[in-house]
């Protein structure tokens, strides 16, 4: 049972995370509310009285038509081409509308609690499927309006809609989730499947976690952050990429703090800023767990910049793009020093740490290329 102080802290962090993500929450609910209004308008338009149809025609024609087109007459023209809705379609609209109405802005709906010992992935999956009901309802509305809703084929749309069935635009407008989870249950590797579109997840970890649980979720297009500072969540809120952040309930020395921002550079080490890399001693905390060490090693490898190119006669050089700023190289070197885990700060050999560069260098060395670079002759 968490102490009262811990619960207060978690509540406070939840509130601050909700504040940070308010724009996204509002955007999602605005879209749902718009869908709700659209359903109501459609029912009116396709089943309503003539004068209502005129009003609706004016809305559909937009402000440009005001004073220029007689909406009542225009509505009469439409009657020729557009048949009224069937009672089955009206029923679908009604059911969809009650689902959409149920989504009226409730920020708490975006907060998910993982039961102690529970599965983080399952909790997120279930919460997203529940939000998916709004998307399913909107899709059902479109089908009903088009006259193609079939209860057998489409009935599931009026229930939970799993994230895997969300389409691109829906994922782009995905509702953010704030997930409260015990530190020891914070095993986020399975969340990768949800990091698509513009979905963002904030994991509020109560209690110690592994040092860098999110390090394995770092991919070029994903915003990933570990922090104890709720203010930092503003960066997550603003990203145009899918994102996940762990907000630690306490600032503990054994937990890495970092940000991987897809917009910050082209290479992984350019996008990754490590504010705190746990030391070997901190990682072990007295009991050396291989997975923990691996997490840190993985993070360190990702953060490390390739060394400056050194041409060695007889071997091809691996060029570092000019765009690589010197300060990033320095920062990467600092990470090594701060970590103190025995990883060499700079390599005496002119080999790149980037596996792709190393492979490219090896391939070039195997190729029977004549020329200045291969022969060691000075380049112009």
């Amino acid at each position: 049972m968490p102490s009262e102080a811990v619960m207060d802290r978690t509540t406070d962090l939840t509130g601050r995370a909700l504040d940070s993500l308010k724009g996204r929450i509002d955007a999602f609910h605005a879209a749902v509310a718009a869908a709700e209004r659209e359903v109501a308008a459609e029912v009116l338009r396709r089943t309503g009285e003539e004068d209502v149809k005129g009003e609706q025609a004016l809305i559909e024609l937009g402000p440009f038509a005001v004073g220029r087109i007689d909406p009542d007459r225009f509505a009469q023209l439409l009657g020729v081409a557009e048949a009224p809705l069937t009672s089955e379609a009206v029923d679908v609209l009604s059911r969809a509308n009650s689902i959409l109405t149920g989504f009226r802005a409730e920020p708490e709906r975006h907060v998910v609690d993982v039961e102690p010992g529970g599965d983080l992935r399952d909790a997120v999956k279930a919460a997203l499927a529940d939000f998916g009901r709004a998307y399913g309802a909107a899709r059902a509305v479109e089908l009903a309006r088009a006259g193609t809703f079939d209860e057998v084929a489409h009935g599931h749309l009026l229930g939970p809609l799993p994230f895997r069935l969300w389409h691109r635009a829906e994922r782009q407008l995905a509702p953010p989730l704030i997930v409260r989870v015990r530190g020891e249950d914070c095993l986020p590797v399975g969340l990768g499947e949800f990091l698509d579109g513009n979905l963002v997840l904030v994991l509020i970890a109560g209690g110690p976690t592994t040092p860098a649980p999110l390090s394995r979720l770092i991919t070029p297009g994903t915003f990933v952050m570990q922090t104890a500072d709720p203010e930092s969540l503003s960066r997550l809120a603003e990203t145009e990429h899918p994102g996940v952040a762990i907000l630690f309930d306490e600032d503990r020395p054994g937990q890495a703090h970092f940000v991987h921002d897809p917009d910050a550079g082209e290479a992984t080490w350019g996008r990754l800023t490590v504010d705190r890399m746990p030391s070997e001693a901190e990682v072990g905390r007295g009991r050396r767990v291989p997975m923990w060490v691996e997490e840190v090693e993985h993070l360190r490898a990702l953060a490390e910049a390739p060394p400056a190119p050194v041409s060695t006669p007889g071997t091809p050089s691996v060029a570092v793009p000019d765009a690589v700023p010197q300060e990033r190289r320095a920062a990467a070197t600092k990470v090594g020093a701060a970590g103190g885990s025995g990883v060499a700060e700079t390599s005496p050999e002119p080999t790149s740490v980037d596996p792709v560069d190393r492979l490219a260098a090896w391939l070039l060395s195997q190729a029977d290329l004549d020329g200045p670079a291969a022969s060691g002759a000075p380049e112009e």
Partner: protein
Amino acid sequence: MAVKLPTVGDATPTQHEIHTHAVADKSVEIVSDSGEGAQKCGQIFGTVSAKMGNGVWTVEIIPAEVEPPPRSPAGASGIRIRLGSDLVTNWGDETNLVVAFNEQALLGRHRLNALADDATILLENMWATHPDDAVRAQWEAGMEELAGSGYRIIEVPMEEECLAVVDNPRRGKNMFVLGMLSWIYHRDLDLTREQIAETFRKKAPEVTERSHGLLDLGYTWASQNLDFRYEIPAAQSDRPMVVMNGNEAIAFGAVAAGLELAAMYPITPATSVSHMLGDVFETFGGVVHQAEDEIAAAGVAVGASYAGKCAFTITSGPGLALKTEFLGLAIMTEIPLVVVDVQRGGPSTGLPTKVEQSDLLAAVFGQPGDAPHVVVAPATIEECFHVMTSARRIAEALRTVVIVLSDANLATGVAPYPRPLMSEGWQSIPADQRPIPEGLKPYDWDPATGISRRFIPGQVGGEHTVTGLAHDEGSKVAYDSAVNERASTMRSRKIAAFQSTLRPPVVNGDTTGDLLVVGWGSTKGAIEEAIDRARGEGLRVSSLHLTFLSPLPPGLKEIFSGFTKVMTVEINYSDKPGDPFITEQNRRRGQLSWLLRSSTLVDVDCWTRVLGEPLRPGRILAAIRESIPRGGRA
């Protein structure tokens, strides 16, 4: 690159006298060689002014070539920004203040009579001491040419000053100029800095930092060296405003209208619609398709609409010509389609960067055979936004083609307008895909309106062969001689049915008088300003602005009958009475004039210009004075 950032607060206090002129309306031009950022400077200045609550209208001055020879009068590239206390609807007459990056660009504007007689000119003076003899000679000759005018020329060492911040001042002096203008017009520096940051948000942070430095430098220099400032009080709107150009408005309008596919091929001045869509369309579920050519773009749009979406294609005059065949197919097969034509000067490649309204007749009558459809022309940047919703809805309701005629003036002009209060009702309605009722045919024209229900591929019971050949109600190729007559009647009738829903246009001014000026499209602001001034002089003049051009709205003949004379004012070509060989019979008239004469049988005169620039209210006023029947003063 060394960056030295001066601070405004560190400036030496000015010792000289400064005259601040309170004015309600002022325009400024910034002119340079291509690529020196004059337009960017003006856009930021205009946007900041709009955000401060001023009325704003900008017009870009774009040379005919992408990269004309530097320091040439014909190569002048720049922007005019007209500011006002109230709504500004056009670019005005001659400009009062010019910032010129070289004397040749200035000469270009001087020779086009773009400058007021007493204009103040801030002129880069590095050319006076340029190491190249030829450049110095040009400078001297230019200054001699300008000497006879009444301009007040103030030499400004722009590049020399900019060296304090950047190594290559040619790449940054536009921000120095922005600083000068910010001081002259009392612009909010914080707002300007924000706008700079927004403008360069996709560039390295150093670009914004340097630009801020140059802004402060220009501001400081102006405060220490200039002796005049302008104060244009702003009337803050109680509604939130947005600031954009017409092409951006069309792009956002397409999103708001629920259009789902934009197919295009790049063409000046229409391309930036697709640039904006490229940034935002996908977020809203839309697709921008750049086809291999104009014809393919039209084909893709027609195909998408046929499949049940509502698509649109964007082009300019030469592209409209290429799309003709596909527009005919859409009209014949009754596939809804919206076509945006951002008009430029023509024919052929013509004046790609200049404004004209010469596509009207091509838009209305351009398709071979009888191809009735709808043509509509927004008159303001705000209307560029809203027209897209109407166009999409009309296209879908009538199963027809709607051509939206914008032009280069609207396309690049920036003006504020009230933020639209979005409605989900503007969005496209999903196509009805229910099984087709037994016996219903794909062209079961309602005999009263000519409208038929739209069939979507895949609809149960709706299988039919689509053909551009003349066809009957069942889409069967016409072998019966009466079929084409019947189908043509129905396609025409639905346009007539739509015309019956249009309201008569509203006259600006009295409904009777000596002269009625009729316009369409982007000339509205200039015409109405000229009318206001003419009425101020006691002339009995009114104006009428048409937005629906095919079909024309009802009641025109009755409106015309209230006036002694009716005259269109347009940016297209017409023969001038009295020119060699020109008679009343063979005179080629303004395009709207021709259209109105044929539809109303009223002797509608015209006054038109094709100078490659928007009409000036003063010139329209002069034409009104000349055209008004004798004894026309009230």
